[in-house]
């Protein structure tokens, strides 16, 4: 006899610590006692990511979702739900409605996949699978039923804003490009995703390349362009490979090229590879790079919409922005605008990484809170540690501390907190992370990636980095902190492009929310999180050390000595402060100070 029902019991770390094992055992026992063992299977699962509501139990195929289940509830689930087919109402999740009043979201699911609608479902190298899921239906509708003005109007109603960072309304970009008189115009897809920890665009290109091609053709129709370029970094070989295949397939079917679908519209797309410079994500630098010049920004205006690639009007949109377009055409701008907040519509894809249990690629409606992302979807902080801050927007964003976790996120609220939406990197930090150290890490990246064209970014970034290094090494003063503030503000105001304008964000938000931590570094010459190596020393407490030799065996530079069963000693002159001994000691005998 085959199983017809499956009871899934979450056995993730958080649920496991709340007796999910006992629930599992009682369910198994109950199923057997009621003679259901040959048609109901009880299964332990990986983390369902709803940890604050755990332990979680889900019944398939009817998808009942039980939360905060106690071992004593197991019998009722078996007797009522499995035997009589009546779900146990009091245990069904009935929490706050999702941020978006969209009927498509089952009440317990926090995510909504518009951009990623096909990612993880279709074979990206098979155009038929894309077509089966309404692929190129939006392009067909645009070419047959809509004028370019209609397309732009639909986008205006949708409220779609650029997902690359700045959040400029997409319809305006298209509209500005459309109204310029020119014989040749271009559409560019900015796939130069470069911030550490971000991989939203890569995943979209790898998982659903045709959606970008379709959107670019729609953009071409709306603005009067016949040629598109996808600017993608060479470090994304799989994305490039799949784009290549997709472009070839679309051309073979006549969905790119001359006279698309017999409607007299010509549009083709080529790929341009970037060499991996972060600054080339800035639109004017990107355009320079396609033109074969060195990737450096130029002052705006004129904006690319007026004078872009080879001096022609150019629409330039990021991957995620474009991926929304076909759905907006098919489901309507009003549908899209029903999701999200007053000023920010639709969803946002984030690459959730750092000290969170369930790192991953997530897509959530605008207006969801950081707490829901980190603790419900992300499953909370690894190892039960304390949350300290989350950095949104990668190296251009800012740190957001715990007291703002309940802020509904959109472009404006993040800016108010001193961060940005950015492209969507989201890095979670816990109590073991030092803010000075983290700030230094990101600044090192932006200093390295600065193109050097304008002085505020080139000199300001380096000056700030040197000051941060001084503080991290215990040589800092209160005056240094003040100088960082001055330089950062100048950089924000005077830098030529977004790279320099946003590079100080992490540091400024660090000073704003974690100023005390900075001051401890300069006044007490101490790093509370124990990350700044120059400020910490490891010593062994003789009265706690039992001489097990574990630390000595772990030490990579062999600087711990001592006889077996006698207290050990660290040779501080040779210690590299890696912390291995501190991690290894089971008796709390290694002290970090």
């Amino acid at each position: 006899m085959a199983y017809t029902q499956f009871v899934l019991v979450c056995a993730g770390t958080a649920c496991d610590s709340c007796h999910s094992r006992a629930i599992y055992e009682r369910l198994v026992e109950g199923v057997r006692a009621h003679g259901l063992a040959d048609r109901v299977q009880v299964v332990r699962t990986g983390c369902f990511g709803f940890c604050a509501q755990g332990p979680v139990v889900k019944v398939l195929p009817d998808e009942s979702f039980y939360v905060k289940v106690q071992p004593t509830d197991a019998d009722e689930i078996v007797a009522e739900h499995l035997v009589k087919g009546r779900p146990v109402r009091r245990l069904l999740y009935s929490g706050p409605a999702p941020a978006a009043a969209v009927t498509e979201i089952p009440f317990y699911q926090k995510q909504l996949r518009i951009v990623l609608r096909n990612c993880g479902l279709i074979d990206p190298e098979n155009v038929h699978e894309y077509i089966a899921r309404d692929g190129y239906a939006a392009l067909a509708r645009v070419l047959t039923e809509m004028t370019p003005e209609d397309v732009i109007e639909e986008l205006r109603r949708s409220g779609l804003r650029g997902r690359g960072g700045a959040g400029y309304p997409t319809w305006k970009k298209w509209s500005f490009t459309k109204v310029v008189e020119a014989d040749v115009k271009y559409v560019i897809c900015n796939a130069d995703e470069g911030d550490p920890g971000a991989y939203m665009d890569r995943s979209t290109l790898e998982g659903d390349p045709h959606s970008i091609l379709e959107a670019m053709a729609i953009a071409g129709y709306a603005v009067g362009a016949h040629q598109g370029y996808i600017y993608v970094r060479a470090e994304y070989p799989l994305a490039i490979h799949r784009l290549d295949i997709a472009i070839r397939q679309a051309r073979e079917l006549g969905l790119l090229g001359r006279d698309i679908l017999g409607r007299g519209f010509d549009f083709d797309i080529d790929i341009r590879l970037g060499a991996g410079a972060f600054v080339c994500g800035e639109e004017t630098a990107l355009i320079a790079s396609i033109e074969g010049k060195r990737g450096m920004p130029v002052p705006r205006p004129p904006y690319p919409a007026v004078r872009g690639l080879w001096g022609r009007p150019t629409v330039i949109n990021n991957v995620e922005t474009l991926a929304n377009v076909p759905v907006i055409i098919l489901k309507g701008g009003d549908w899209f605008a029903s999701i999200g907040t007053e000023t920010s519509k639709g969803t946002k894809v984030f690459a959730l990484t750092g000290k969170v249990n369930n790192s991953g690629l997530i897509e959530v409606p605008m207006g969801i809170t950081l707490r829901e992302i980190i603790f419900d979807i992300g499953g909370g902080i690894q190892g039960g540690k304390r949350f300290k801050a989350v950095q949104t927007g990668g190296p251009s964003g800012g740190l957001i501390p715990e007291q703002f976790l309940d802020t509904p996120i959109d472009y404006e609220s993040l800016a108010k907190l001193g961060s940005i939406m950015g492209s969507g990197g989201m890095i979670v930090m816990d109590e073991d992370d030092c803010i000075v150290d983290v700030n230094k890490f990101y600044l090192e990246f932006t200093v390295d990636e600065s193109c050097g064209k304008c002085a505020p970014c080139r000199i300001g970034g380096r000056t700030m980095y040197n000051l941060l290094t001084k503080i991290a090494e215990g040589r800092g003063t209160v005056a240094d902190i003040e100088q960082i503030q001055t330089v950062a503000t100048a950089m924000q105001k005077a830098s030529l492009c977004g790279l320099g304008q946003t590079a100080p964000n992490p540091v400024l938000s660090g000073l704003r929310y974690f100023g005390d931590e900075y001051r401890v570094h300069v006044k007490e010459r101490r790093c509370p999180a124990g990350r700044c190596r120059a400020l910490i020393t490891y010593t062994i407490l003789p009265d706690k050390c039992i001489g097990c030799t574990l630390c000595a065996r772990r030490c990579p530079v062999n600087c711990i000595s001592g006889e077996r069963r006698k207290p050990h000693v660290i040779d501080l002159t040779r210690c590299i402060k890696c912390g291995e001994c501190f991690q290894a000691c089971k008796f709390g005998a290694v002290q970090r100070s």
Partner: protein
Amino acid sequence: MGKITLEELRELRERARAELARRGADASGGDIIVGMGTCGLAAGARETMSTLVEELNRRGLSNVRVRPTGCMGLCHSEPTVEVRIPGMPAVIYGKVTPEVAQRIVEEHVLGHKLLDDHVYDRPAPDLMSPPARPGK
């Protein structure tokens, strides 16, 4: 294939949709879909995929198809694999090493049982199904 017209695109969509729908129906032995984004590949999805193919061949299960897809979003549990076979709910498995892949064929595909400790929740509902208004 030559350039298609609107009418042909519509026909192609209907055919492709029927093809997708047939999956997991009794007519076929089902589908096993492997997440092959960079995250999956870095975690060993290629080995997982070849193990699945070998294992199905070895057992003569030629009617079960193994297909690649992009990132399912569960990067913390790569490689990820979705199994859709007739008579079973579609489930996503995470941390599918070659050993787990063998067990999936043996226990899930043949035994019609779910594997312990590897099932993960689908992160979001499918927006495109039932299909958005069919394109014209």
